[in-house]
């Protein structure tokens, strides 16, 4: 076992566990968005940033940083609060997150984070990008206006379903999730229509066709339930 300190508490962890896993096991809450139990950590959203005092205060994503013997981790501080809030504001400003007309209104991890992190307004200018939807598939829809590029759909598709339908297309601020490297979802020859991408998505970016405002309820834990039932190598 490894012993480290998180948020002023002595915590035990197994070698190879992440700071986030150790914190959660000890009942210490750290905000997350792109992290989903059962998927490989990606460190994409940066909301789980923590300060490692024993690394001269370096700020690292707790979901993607492995514990170390004697490590000292600050999970909550004024600096982290400001960093997390700014990151959240950038996520809201980047696309068109219009909660009032979103299928995930009331069941959205991004919306929840605004409450949790005390985001009373967004201080950076909104981009209001012209983004579309792909409703070509018979059962599912992707709405790029609500996507935060967390990659949970991409990872669920490759790591759990093994279909590798979802990926990222374009670069930088123009990045979007895409099926079969681009093109209408209905034309995908790899999609198995399993729906895990929809369940894994934290916002209203992936939805069941036919759902209206506030009707989309997701079950992201399906990913960890599936992985736990599978025989381990």
């Amino acid at each position, binding site marked *: 076992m490894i012993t480290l300190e998180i948020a002023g508490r002595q915590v035990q962890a197994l070698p190879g566990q992440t700071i986030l896993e150790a914190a959660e096991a000890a009942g210490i809450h750290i905000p997350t968005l792109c992290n989903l139990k059962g998927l490989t950590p990606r460190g994409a959203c940066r909301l789980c940033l923590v300060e490692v005092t024993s690394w001269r205060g370096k700020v690292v994503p707790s979901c993607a940083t492995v514990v170390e013997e004697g490590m000292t981790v600050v999970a909550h501080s004024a600096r982290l609060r400001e960093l997390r809030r700014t990151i959240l504001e950038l996520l*809201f400003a980047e696309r*068109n*997150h*219009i*909660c*009032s*007309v*979103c299928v995930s*209104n*009331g069941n959205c991890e991004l*919306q929840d984070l*605004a*409450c949790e992190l*005390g*985001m*009373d*307004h*967004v201080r950076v*200018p*909104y981009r*209001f*990008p*012209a*983004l579309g939807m792909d409703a070509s598939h018979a059962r599912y829809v992707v709405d790029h206006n609500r996507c935060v590029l967390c990659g949970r759909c991409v990872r669920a598709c490759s790591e759990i379903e093994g279909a590798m339908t979802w990926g990222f297309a374009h670069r930088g601020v123009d990045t979007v999730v895409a099926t079969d490297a681009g093109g209408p979802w209905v034309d995908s020859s790899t999609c198995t229509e399993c729906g895990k991408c929809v369940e894994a998505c934290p916002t209203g970016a992936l939805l069941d066709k036919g759902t209206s405002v*506030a009707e989309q309820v997701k079950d992201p834990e399906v990913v960890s339930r599936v992985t736990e039932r599978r025989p381990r190598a």
Partner: protein
Amino acid sequence: MPEGKVRLATVWFSGCSGCHMSLLDLDERLLELAAKADLVYSPIVDIKEFPDGVDATLVEGAVGNTEHLELVKEIRSKSKLVVSFGDCAVTGNVPSMRNSLAPEEVLHQVYGEGDVPGLEGGAVPKLLPQAVPVHSVVPVDAYIHGCPPPADRIWTFVRKLLAGEDLELVGEDLRFG
């Protein structure tokens, strides 16, 4: 807040008036509010000019046209507190869905082809290039989330206002939508 009654104003920009409807949903609590505050300017009172010396103005709606832009600046200069009231004022919300289109294209899509009556000669205020949150145009002192904000949330805020407390809402009261 000062001695005597609070001078309260409300205004309606690019929004659906749902926030004002939710304000009226305070129901019997309106009597308590009326005992402690005078509504000195609002879409629900018949006063044409925005008065001086307002203690707090609740702004519903995004800033979407030239009239809103002018009035919000006047409101800022005459109000001690400016409050973004509801998601349209806080984020742009539904009115901001036009923002990736040019204003001319919006009018074209809504009113059809040809000349739109009233647009010439300034009879109707011109659309701004984008419908934007109030705080992007003037400094804002407090924010009330929701589309519309539930009456209980409005009451939480109003009670803080009347008591002269810190106006920051927290937790579930920061839920958009």
